[in-house]
């Protein structure tokens, strides 16, 4: 872990094959299109194992598009296209022999709006991924308790696991969604503005959850909240658009990004001068 943890497209070149296999998630020259609209241009980033990376930048700069490329959710949009490669522990998730469903098992996702399955109980929601992906697990009770605990929800719901997932408050629903993602044991968890619909109390709970998660898995979080980025992330990547496709301006350790960024635009953005 002595090499630069996060490498921007302007930074060190990656020479695959020569260096030992990078453990974690890595993108190399990633582009994204929707039809003819070029949404994201040439993003190369590394997300080391067991770290939290915040993706920041103004609306429309391609953060969400980028994060959806990381677990192959991008391809659900009919006109979508992409270029470049995304490597999980060194192997390309867009390789023809890769099964997208298996990729999404390894790279989980929490959405902006809490979306528990309305027809399922809290317990069933947590176990949904195991059932949906046909995983063989016998210790269901243990999984439910463990995942809800890791998502910081266990104490609040342990006595009503048979209640509907929809009966929880917004913040609780979002933590239920996190627990649901954890049950399939992903290596990476993508979070697309997970707190944007929540009150400050719930936000704080989820931030604590994220920090605990990072002890075991890699977390990548899109956020519009600078304080949140500085609180939870180890690394930050700043995206921007000049009307054209979104691009990566700078990526570095969060402390450096917030105190002494290389690019003046980063400084302006994190200090709230625009965006």
């Amino acid at each position, binding site marked *: 872990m002595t090499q630069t943890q996060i490498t921007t497209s302007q930074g060190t070149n990656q020479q695959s094959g020569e260096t030992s296999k990078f453990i974690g998630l890595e993108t190399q020259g990633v582009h994204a299109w929707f039809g003819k609209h070029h949404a994201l241009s040439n993003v190369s980033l590394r997300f080391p194992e067991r770290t939290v990376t915040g993706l920041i930048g103004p609306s429309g700069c391609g953060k969400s598009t980028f994060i959806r490329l990381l677990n192959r959710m991008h391809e659900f949009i009919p006109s979508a296209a992409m270029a470049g490669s995304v490597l999980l522990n060194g192997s390309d998730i867009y390789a023809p022999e890769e099964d997208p469903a298996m*990729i999404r098992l390894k790279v989980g996702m929490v*959405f902006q709006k809490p979306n528990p399955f309305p027809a399922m109980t809290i317990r069933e929601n947590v176990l949904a991924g195991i059932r949906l992906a046909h995983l063989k697990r016998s210790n269901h009770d243990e999984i439910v308790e463990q995942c809800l605990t890791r998502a910081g929800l266990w104490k609040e719901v342990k006595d009503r696991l048979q209640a509907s997932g*929809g009966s929880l408050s917004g913040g609780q629903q979002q933590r239920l969604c996190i627990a649901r993602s954890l049950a399939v044991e992903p290596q990476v968890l993508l979070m697309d503005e997970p707190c944007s619909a929540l009150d400050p109390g719930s936000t704080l709970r989820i931030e604590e959850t994220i920090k605990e998660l990072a002890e075991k898995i890699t977390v990548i979080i899109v956020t519009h909240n600078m304080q949140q980025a500085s609180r939870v992330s180890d690394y930050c990547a700043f995206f921007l658009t000049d009307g054209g496709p979104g691009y990566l301006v700078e990526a570095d350790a969060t402390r450096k990004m917030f105190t002494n960024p290389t690019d003046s635009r980063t400084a302006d953005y994190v200090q709230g001068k625009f965006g």
Partner: protein
Amino acid sequence: MSTVASSSQLTTAEPRRPWAVSRSTRLLGFGRILAFAIAAFFATIFTPLANVDGWAVAFLLINLAWVIGIASKLGAKERRDAVLRVVITSLAVLAFVPWLSILVTVILKGYRAIYPGYFVSDMRTSTPDDELNIGGAGHAIVGSLIMVAIATVVTLPLGILTGIYLTEVRGRLTFLVRFIVQSMAGVPSVVAGLFLFATVVKSMGQYSGLAGGLALAVLMLPTVSRTAEEVLKLVPDDIRSAGYALGARQWRTALLVVLPTVRAGLSTAAILGVARVIGETAPLLLTSLNTNGFVWNPIGGTVASLPTYIFAMFMYGTDYSNARAWTGSLVLLALVFFFFIIARRLGNKSALKANANRRK
């Protein structure tokens, strides 16, 4: 701090509704409507306007006259509001009138032949012209339910699969499938009967409940698939995304996440389909015909059904047989009503709705 505390101590608040319309105003409005309704009734006696539709037109005209009468007291916006309110209320009443008229007629003419035995006995030992305390339509009720059950068993899986194809799979044939479903909805029911007559009845060499049920299924399928499609469209995409993001394949997501979410809506689709076909007569005359006794075997020859029972009784044309036919109609209406009640209750239990209510 002290002001907040003192104000909360002072409150001896009575709950009240300053926005509510007072009782006297409401009584006055109700009395006015009643007076106008009676006036409209007299209008049907003394003017060329006649029957319920004439009454409704008279009612509308009297209301309009009243609004124009008080119009001088109102401002321009109030006047427009009052006129529109009268027009809309009257049209709603007008739409309600035929429905009420049918219901009242069927109940008034249909209660005559009702006795407990009507629901359990058949017509083997009685003729349509016998006294109303013998014989019944039990065999017709059973026949109708069996055929509708056959139609449902055939239609429900097909309809749900069609809905899934149109909303989840969205395959290349989506346009074609939707077009065919829509044109099937326009197939005259007698054609469906002829189709089953030419295929099942001819090949089996006899009329049967199976043929009748299948003819009903042909008519039921468009209703069920279109309702299923509409219901599945209501499932928000983020729920599907959540399924995919958990590493589920499309068919698992559709089966385990999307379908359970709309379980209630799909039951409603089935029941709407049942209500659509339970009164069909023409296709049954060509497929299951009619008989006088209970038939439990769907491939054992002709089967009675409520519509063909009603038809046969009216064709007989005596006072008692007509009374039997009206009672058959009443039972049929009650069955449809019963199915709709079930549909509504299931619909209210819908998981999606529970969620939507929570968010309000």
